[in-house]
C-alpha cells in the first residue's frame, strides 16, 4: 500500500519545485520604467513621435528583450517614416513573440514602404516546415517538456525496479521515453539557439550594397533597399556574409545593417 503513496510523491515534489521557480521567471521591474513606458505611450497617442521615441529608447536599455517595447518602437519609427528601423523593431518583436498577429500585420505594412523591394523567394517546403516547427513552441516550452519526459523516464525506471515482472513491456516504454527525451532535448537546443541569435539583420542605410568579396573595393552585385531583411551566415572583419531575400549571397558592411 505505501508504495502507491510513495509514487505520487516525486511528481508532487517536482510540481512544487517548478512552482517555486516560476516566480523567479518574472524579474522585478522598477517604477521608473513603468513611468517611462506610460509617458512614451502618451506621447505616441498625441502623435509626438519624436518624444515617444526618446522614451522608448530609454526603456530599451533596461529591457532589450521586451516584445511589446519593440512593437511600439516599430510603430513609432513607422510613423516617423524610418522604414529600416521600423522593420528592425517589428522583426525583433516577432523574434521575442512569434505568435503576435498584430506585429505581423504591421511588419507587412512597413515592408510595403520599402523602396524598390527585392523579390522574395519562398524556401523549399522542408525548410519552411523546419522553420515552422522551430516556431511552433518556445524554447521554454521545449525545456519544460524535456524535463517532463526526463521525469517520465525516471518513473518508468522506478516502476520497473519495484513492480518487476508485474510491469510488462517496461523495456519498450523505457526506450520510447528515452527517444522522445533525446528529440525533445535537440528541439530545446535548436529553439534556444534560434532565440539566442535569430541570424537575421535589417538594412538601415539606403546606400547599402551587396559586394562579392568582404572588401570596400569589392564588386557591387546588388543595391539593397533600406528595410530589407537579410540572413546572416557569418562575419569577417567589418563585413557580414548575408543572403538576400532573392537568394543572392554576398557581403555587406556590418555598420549599415542591424542584427535582429
Amino acid at each position: 500500500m505505501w508504495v502507491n503513496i510513495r509514487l505520487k510523491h516525486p511528481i508532487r515534489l517536482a510540481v512544487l519545485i517548478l512552482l517555486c521557480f516560476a516566480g523567479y521567471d518574472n524579474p522585478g521591474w522598477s517604477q521608473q520604467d513603468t513611468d517611462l513606458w506610460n509617458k512614451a505611450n502618451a506621447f505616441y497617442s498625441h502623435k509626438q513621435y519624436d518624444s515617444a521615441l526618446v522614451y522608448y529608447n530609454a526603456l530599451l536599455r533596461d529591457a532589450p528583450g521586451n516584445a511589446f517595447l519593440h512593437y511600439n518602437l516599430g510603430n513609432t519609427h513607422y510613423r516617423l517614416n524610418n522604414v529600416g528601423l521600423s522593420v528592425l523593431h517589428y522583426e525583433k518583436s516577432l523574434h521575442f513573440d512569434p505568435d503576435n498577429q498584430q506585429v505581423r500585420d504591421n511588419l507587412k505594412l512597413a515592408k510595403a514602404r520599402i523602396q524598390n523591394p527585392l523579390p522574395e523567394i519562398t524556401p523549399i517546403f522542408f525548410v519552411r516546415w523546419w522553420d515552422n516547427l522551430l516556431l511552433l513552441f518556445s524554447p521554454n516550452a521545449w525545456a519544460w517538456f524535456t524535463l517532463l519526459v526526463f521525469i517520465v523516464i525516471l518513473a518508468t525506471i522506478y516502476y520497473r525496479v519495484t513492480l518487476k515482472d508485474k510491469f510488462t513491456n517496461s523495456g519498450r516504454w523505457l526506450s520510447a521515453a528515452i527517444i522522445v527525451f533525446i528529440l525533445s532535448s535537440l528541439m530545446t537546443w535548436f529553439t534556444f539557439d534560434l532565440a539566442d541569435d535569430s541570424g537575421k539583420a535589417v538594412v538601415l542605410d539606403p546606400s547599402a550594397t551587396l559586394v562579392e568579396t568582404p572588401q570596400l573595393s569589392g564588386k557591387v552585385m546588388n543595391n539593397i533597399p533600406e528595410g530589407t531583411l537579410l540572413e546572416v551566415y557569418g562575419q569577417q572583419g567589418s563585413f557580414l556574409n548575408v543572403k538576400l531575400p532573392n537568394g543572392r549571397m554576398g557581403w555587406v558592411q556590418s555598420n549599415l545593417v542591424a542584427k535582429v
Partner: protein
Amino acid sequence: MIWKGLVGSVVLLLLHICTIAQEIVFSAQVNTQKLGLKDQLQVTYTLSNAPGATNFQAPSFSGFSIVGGPYQSNSSSISIINGQTRQVSSVSLSYVLEPIKTGSFTIPPARVEVNGKTVSSNTVTVQVVNGSLMQERMNQRTDPFDDDPFTAMRRYQQQLRQQMMQQRGRQQPQQANSEADGLSEKNIDKNIFIKVEVDKTNPYQGEQITASYKLYTRLPMSVNLTQLPSLNGFWSQDFQIPNPPKAREEIVNGKKYQVFLLKKSALFPQQSGTLELDAAKAEGIVRVLQQVKGHNPFADDPFSSFFMDDPFFNEDAFIGYNYKDVKVKLSSMPIKINVKPLPTLNQPGSFTGAVGTFDVKASVDKTILSTDDAATLTFTISGSGNLKLIGNPKINFPSELGIYDPLITDTITGRNPAITGSKIFTYSINPQTPGDFTIPAIPLAYYDVHSGSYKVIKSDPVKIKVVAGKNYSNTIASQKLPGDIHNIYTGSWNGGSRSLAVSHIWYWLLYAIVSAVLTGLILIHRRQEAYAENTALLKNKKANKVAWKRLSAARKLLTQQKHKEFYEEISKAIWLYLSDKLGIPLAHLSKENVALELSNKNVPITQIERVRSIVLECEMALYSPIGGQQQRQHTLDEAVAIISELENVLKTKNIALQHVG
C-alpha cells in the same frame, strides 16, 4: 471671302535704265495662265536697263477690269564681272485684274519709249473659266490635319499676304485718294497691329475668360508669328480658328481694317492674383504706299525721270503710287487679369476646384461579379467650366472592393463660347471579399459664377454584388494589407525580457533533484524489500521451535486432563507453524489454501492429507470432545510427527531453491 470676289491683277512695268551698253528688256508676266471667273490675275511689266524710259502705255485690258494698280517697285543690282562693273536697274509695274467673262484672252503688248525708241513687251495669253481655280489650289495646299502651329502659321501668312494684296487691290480704286496719306510708312503702327481682346479682366479663379489675339491691318503684308503667348498661370483651351483664315472688316476710329484672328483661347486662371496675358509677337514685311504725285519719291533717283514726264502717272485715276516693303515687328500689349479668389465662405468640404456648371453620373459596367473578376466604375463630370482643373472626387469606397487611383480622361466637346465637355474618372474594381456593397453617392461641389454660390450635386449610389470566385479563399482575404498599422500596445509595463529556462542553473538543478529523488526512492524500496524478506526467513527458522513449545504445552495439558485447551494448543501449533513456514498471515489461512500452498512446495499428498485430517480432528474435538486419553495421546504424536516431517520436507525444498537461485 476675298477669294469669292473677282480680282484681276495687272502689272505695268516701267523702267528707266541709264547704264550704257546694257540690253533693254521689257517683259510682261502673269501669275497664272489659267484662272476662274472669280479669281484675280496679276500682270507685271518689268523694264530693265532702260534709263530715261518715258511714255509708258498700258495695253487695253479687254475682257478684264482693273481693280488695282499700277503698283510700282524699283530695284537695282550691281555686279562686277571680269573687272567690269555692271549695274542692272529695273522698274516694274503691276496691275490687278478681274476677268469679266470666260474665254481665252490675249493681253496686248505695252509700250514704252526709251531714248526715243518705242519698245514693246511680249503678249500674254490667259484662259478664263467658270468658278474659282485659286480656291481649289488654296484648298489643296491646306492640310486640315496639320497641327504644327508654325507650319500652319506660315501658310496662313502666305494666304494673308495674297488676300491683302487682293484686298488692297479691290479697295484701291475707291479709297485711293482718301487713304493714300494714311498708308504711308510713318503711320505704319496705326495701320497694322496686334490686339488682344478679353471678355473679362476680373474673373474668379477657375472662371473661363476668352482671349482673342487679332491682327488688324490696312496694308498688304507678309507677316509671320514669331511668338505665341505662353499663357502662364492659365489652363488654356484653344478655339479652332478658320483655315484658310478669313478676314473680317472692322471699323476702328472710322477706318476700315481687315481683321485676322490669330489665336482664340478659353483661359481658366489657376491661381488668384494678378496674371498677365503675355504678348504675341510677329515679324514680317509690310508694303507701304508711297505717293508719287506732287512729290517725286525718285527725285534723286537718276533713273526715275520718266515718271515725271509720264502723263500716265499724272492722271488722278491712276495715281502713281509706288510701294515699299518695310520690315515690321509687331507685338501685342500685355494685358493684366485680376483673378479673384473663390469665396471661402460656405465652401463645401467636397469642393475640389470646379467652377462652372456641371452634372455628374456614376455607373458600373457590371453589378454582379465574382472575386476573380474586375469591374469598372465610371464617374463622369460633364458640363462647362474648368474641367481640366477639377481634382479627384473624395469617395469613401468600401475597402473590400479594392479600388485604387482612377484613370482620368478629359474630353472637350464644345467651345461655343464656353468650354464644354466631360471629365471621366475610371476606377477599376477588384473585389477581394464577397458580399453586397454600395458605392456611396459621389458628390461634386462647384462654384457657379452666375449665381455666385457653391452648389453640390451627387451621383446616384451604385450597388454591387460580389460572389466568391474560384480562387477565393479566406486565407487570400486575410492576406490583404490592412489600411493602417495597428495601434501600439498600451497595456501596463511588464518589465524585462523573456528569460530562457535553459540558460538558468536552476533548470539543470531540477534534473539533478529529480534524479536524486528517484535514486533515494529506489534505495528505500530496496531496503524495505530486504527487511520483509528477513522477517519471513526468521519466522521460518523459528517456526519449528514455536511448534515444539506449543506441543510440549499441549503435553502438559494432556496430563492435566484439560481437553479443550489441549486441542486448541495443538491447532495453534499447526496453524502458526504453517503460517510462518508458508509466509501467509494467519488470518488468510484456510484448509484449502494450505493444501494448495503445500502442494506448490512439492509436499507429498499423503502428508498434506495427514495435515488436513489432524486439523479437522482438532476442529471437531474443540466442539465435541470425544475419544479418550489414548486418542488424544495419538493426536499429539501425530502432530509432532507431521510437523517434523513437514520441517524436513520444507527445509530441503528451501535449500534446493536457494541452490537453484
